[in-house]
């Protein structure tokens, strides 16, 4: 069997990756790093009104269509999660496969170990669609490059599949890989390598990508879905945007007579009021954002880019990039090997772009580095590298270093603790599980909660993600501001509870507010009293540790 493995790079790659997958399954919290994935899965599971919906918004709808049959067959399985794990596994298997295929067995094995130990923990432990987008795109391009050098139909087909799937998972992550694609295309054109295959690759990818792009567009034509999709842009600007002067934004609105409480509300994710924050009323706020947008301070930005690249070295993935690049330059027989510098340049430009929108977020950053690492694989010089680890002492040292790096990488993962405690005044594991049970047994009541609570609930519900919430799992729980606001399935469910306008109707007799001891500075109560000109009474109906279920009513004398 061993002899078989030695000969077959693919089998060897699979075996090696299975070991790492196993380690992940044992150590991880069995869940996503980001809540977005959890709530997208909830859309697919039909957690709101019981009907599975393919409009995932951040992920292309085609993905929803592909997974939907599985949910219809086995509704209690978290297919979305399982497929995300498979994607990570597949991409790393491709990376190792190409390493083993290109290099001598021993060197290939050792470098695969470096790659898997240093890079894979981030992607397994911080599972998210954003990272998977980069991972899949990179593995697809890698197979394209292999196919360009030694044509092989299977590589091309798998490459196309992975490349396109990267686009499906998250087009922003996919786009981070485009500078590399452009570079490789130019290079092939200049060197006139296999122009026919290049043409086929570029054309076929372009056709499929365009098809998917227009398919996605066609999914949001219906008025309800159109409104839902149109709302995402402004929402993200207010709640995620850190690129404008927030105080000046408040000032400008207040000075022009806009209610300051409302400006603060939308900024702190308290925006599910279908009248006051109707899409038509947002341009005024968006103008204020535009008007208070910061400009880049170029000299400071330059410092920031260098510092961000340096800080990358806190992450083991970047060690892998450094090791591979140094190996390339040390063993290269070419006069001028430039890939390490090109990748460093692309990394800088992409960090610059993220600086411009002030969205230097961990999961995006790991994608930037991943692309740079993935393509080092095709630049590792095959022949000269065979002398890299010819002594056994060297081999042992490298393997030990790999395991140390792996241990370090795993220790760094906040996802390590299986039962992650939410706590901090936002309710612990036990509190939320009791509340969820209570909500499930009181389907005549609906529960609303603001961003902080909704997230805490998500953090509890998402573990373990291999189990689905199931249809109707969130049928009587609504956020007062989250990205799934206005999802048609949620709207239909709101209608059933007579909760057409959550921030106004939460005083209805069947609606209860879920609060925690710790609260965001602006509450729905304040919002209501400012906008709907009535004072509210509150009464705690139920308590689960830090969590309170509160009934708000309009004060009698004001009715």
């Amino acid at each position: 069997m061993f002899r078989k493995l030695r000969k077959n790079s693919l089998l060897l790659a699979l075996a090696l990756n299975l070991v790492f997958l196993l380690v992940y399954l044992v150590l991880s919290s069995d869940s996503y790093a980001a809540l977005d994935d959890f709530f997208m899965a909830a859309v697919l599971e039909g957690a709101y009104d019981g009907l599975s919906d393919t409009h995932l918004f951040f992920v292309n709808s085609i993905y929803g269509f592909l997974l939907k049959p599985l949910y219809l067959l086995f509704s209690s399985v978290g297919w979305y999660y399982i497929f995300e794990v498979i994607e990570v596994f597949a991409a790393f298997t491709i990376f190792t496969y190409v390493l083993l295929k290109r290099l001598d067995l021993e060197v290939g094995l050792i470098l695969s170990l470096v790659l898997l130990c240093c890079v894979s923990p981030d992607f397994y432990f911080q599972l998210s669609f954003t990272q998977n987008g980069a991972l899949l795109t990179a593995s697809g391009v890698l197979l394209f490059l292999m196919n360009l050098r030694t044509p092989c139909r299977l590589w091309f087909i798998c490459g196309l599949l992975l490349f396109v799937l990267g686009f499906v998972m998250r087009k922003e992550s996919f786009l981070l890989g485009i500078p590399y694609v452009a570079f490789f295309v130019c290079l092939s054109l200049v060197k006139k390598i296999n122009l026919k295959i290049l043409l086929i690759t570029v054309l076929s990818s372009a056709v499929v990508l365009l098809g998917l792009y227009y398919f996605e567009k066609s999914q949001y034509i219906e008025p309800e879905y159109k409104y839902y999709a149109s709302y995402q842009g402004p929402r993200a600007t207010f709640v995620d945007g850190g690129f404008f002067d927030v105080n000046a934004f408040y000032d400008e609105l207040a000075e022009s007579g806009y209610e300051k409480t409302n400006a603060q509300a939308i900024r702190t994710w308290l925006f599910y009021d279908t009248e006051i924050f109707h899409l038509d009323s947002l341009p005024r706020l968006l103008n204020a954002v535009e008007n208070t947008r910061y400009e880049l301070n170029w000299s400071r930005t330059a410092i920031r880019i260098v510092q961000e690249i340096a800080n990358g070295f806190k992450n083991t993935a970047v060690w892998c990039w450094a090791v591979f690049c140094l190996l390339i330059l040390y063993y290269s027989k070419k006069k001028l090997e430039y890939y390490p510098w090109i990748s460093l340049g692309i990394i800088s430009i992409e960090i610059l772009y993220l600086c411009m929108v002030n969205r230097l977020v961990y999961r995006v950053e790991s994608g930037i580095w991943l692309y740079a690492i993935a393509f080092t694989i095709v630049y590792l010089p095959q022949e000269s590298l065979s002398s890299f680890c010819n002594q056994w002492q060297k081999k042992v040292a490298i393997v030990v270093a790999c395991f140390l790096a792996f241990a370090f990488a795993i220790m760094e993962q906040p996802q390590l603790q299986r039962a992650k405690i939410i706590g901090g005044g936002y309710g612990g594991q036990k509190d939320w599980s009791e509340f969820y049970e209570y909500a499930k047994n009181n389907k005549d009541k609906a529960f609303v909660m603001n961003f902080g609570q909704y997230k805490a609930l998500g953090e509890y519900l998402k573990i373990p993600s291999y189990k689905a919430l199931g249809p109707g799992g969130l049928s009587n729980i609504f956020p007062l501001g989250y990205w799934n606001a206005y999802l048609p399935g949620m709207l239909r469910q709101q209608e059933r509870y007579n909760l057409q306008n959550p921030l106004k109707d939460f005083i209805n007799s069947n609606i209860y507010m879920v609060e925690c001891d710790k609260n965001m500075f602006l509450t729905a109560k304040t919002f209501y009293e400012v906008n709907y000109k009535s004072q509210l009474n509150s009464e705690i109906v139920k308590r689960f540790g830090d969590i309170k279920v509160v009934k708000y009513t309009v004060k009698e004398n004001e009715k």
Partner: protein
Amino acid sequence: MKLNFILLLSVIIGLVFLMFYGDSKELDEQIMLKPWHMQRQEQNDSLSSYYLENYQIHGKGRLVEMLSSTPQHKVIILVDAWGVPYIPQNLNEEFAVFSGLSAKKIIQRRLGNTTIHAEKVELRKKDYTGIFLFGGDSLEYNRKEYMPQLGYDKLVFCQNCSDSVMLVQLDSILNENAAIQTIAFTTQSSRDGVRSNLLQSLKLIRDLVAKHPEDIFIIQGTHRPVLTSGKIRESYYENWVPALIMGDAH
């Protein structure tokens, strides 16, 4: 031969060194509110030495409390969107409008950047009689409600009236010599941050002050221009406004 290798190695060593010793704490502070790489160097809000040397700085408390005498009338005029520019010449020009009159030139701390904030902070009063004038709708900012709470028993609103119209009214109130202790007025012609409008309003105010040498005038900016382009707004200090005291025995 391996120059390329050595170059990359030194870059990596340099980066690792930076990782340990680089100051990313300052960089990450307030990343969502005031991202370090999006702030101008001079954007800290401490006044330049020119201002510190040439003008009296008033850090805390209402300007009214600085008065040393208690005259029959005191007039407080809040000039909308009058800020302290980073370029001192502009402010000098604005102060120069009042040349020839004895005035105490002050730069005052203003923590909020809205007119409503300036009014609530500066116009609150303890004496008995007061009148407030504004050349606009009484519903704006809900003045009808909070002005009486600040201690003004008489409110004069005039729809769409420019500063010149309002200053004529103010002049006649002063001429009537009625028993009104505090007369407050918030201008509005300069609210859009257009400098020529501001200078025009200041000139009109100067003419009024010149006509009433017996009264005390406090003239102060509400806040830096807010309802204007970002470029103009950012040419002013965030939390400082100019002010003048005239007619007070020094």
